[in-house]
């Protein structure tokens, strides 16, 4: 995955943050669209500039940053897990291709989420120097696929749990878009394992 693509994704994400405001403005019939957007953004930075004033708006921004950073932490772990799988020598070429592709998606999630943290005035979480993976239990391709499927399943639940607690709804929308991707990974991995790819109508 080229870093250029990643940057494009990240800016698409920032774009999404602005989109709902635009839609709102359009509905409200605002003709001085860009000027108003600029004003709103200025309002947004004022809110962020009060970062140390202890206001409640500021407390919710800080909470959003914490939620984002925990999600980023989990995404970093997924990238490292796919790296382990890719380097295991246990994957046949076609499966390896898919694993590397999914890893690329997780990297793009990190870029997008990190861009949001920066925009909110925070510092994005970095990858850990070391992850504890059940390496000794990975002996064949099926083990690697089951391991990856578990991580993707967990990621789906993590985003289901994060979406309702963001103060900023644009972040919820962005998290929902990531959730959809991780759910697809999970379904594809289940399919590769010979399991029913989509066993239920609802997931918590």
């Amino acid at each position, binding site marked *: 995955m080229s870093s250029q693509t990643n940057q494009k994704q990240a800016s698409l994400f920032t774009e999404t943050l602005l989109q709902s405001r635009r839609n709102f403005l359009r509905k409200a019939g605002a003709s001085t669209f860009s000027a108003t957007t600029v004003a709103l953004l200025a309002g947004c930075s004022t809110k962020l500039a009060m970062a140390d004033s202890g206001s409640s708006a500021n407390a919710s921004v800080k909470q959003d940053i*914490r939620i984002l950073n925990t*999600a980023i932490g989990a995404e970093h772990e997924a990238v490292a897990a796919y790296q382990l799988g890719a380097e295991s020598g246990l994957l046949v070429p076609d499966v390896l291709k898919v694993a590397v592709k999914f890893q690329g998606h997780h990297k793009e999630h990190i870029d997008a989420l990190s861009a949001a943290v920066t925009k909110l005035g925070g510092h994005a979480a970095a990858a850990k120097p070391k992850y504890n993976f059940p390496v000794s239990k990975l002996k064949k391709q099926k083990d690697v696929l089951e391991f990856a499927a578990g991580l993707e399943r*967990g990621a789906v639940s993590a985003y*289901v749990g994060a979406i309702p607690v963001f103060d900023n709804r644009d972040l919820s929308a962005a998290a929902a878009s990531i959730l959809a991707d991780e759910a697809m990974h999970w379904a594809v991995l289940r399919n590769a394992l010979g399991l029913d790819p989509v066993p239920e109508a*609802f997931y918590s």
Partner: protein
Amino acid sequence: MTPSKQNVLIKLRHLKPSPTSMVLSATLLSCLVLLTNTAHAGDPLTGKDIYNRCIGCHSFADNRTGPRHCNLFGRKAGTVQGFDYSDAMRNSKIVWNETTLDAFLKAPLQNIPGTIMGYAGVKNDRERADLIAYLKQASGSSECK
């Protein structure tokens, strides 16, 4: 009914009724009466399934995005070695047991403001009781010794 489906139905219960949704509410209500159960002895077997919601961040054996869950019961919150907790968790003075876990897992961000566990919680009382029964069983199992 699957736990996830129950969850969706229970969330729907909190929606404000509009005239057109009244009929739907009546139908839902008959389902929900069956689901509502306050004094429920947790079932660890069902709880194991609920724990799948936690495995994106936790495992029993290892610190991951969240701290390890081995030996959770009786432990002071925020004290697993090598895990980088929030100050809020470290200073919470909570000791984990059925009661404290019930309050935390219902609404982590309200229970410990400032926690980095960015997760809405397990809102269903019965699911939470099952989950806690499983946490108790598995966190004290031989795998954790």
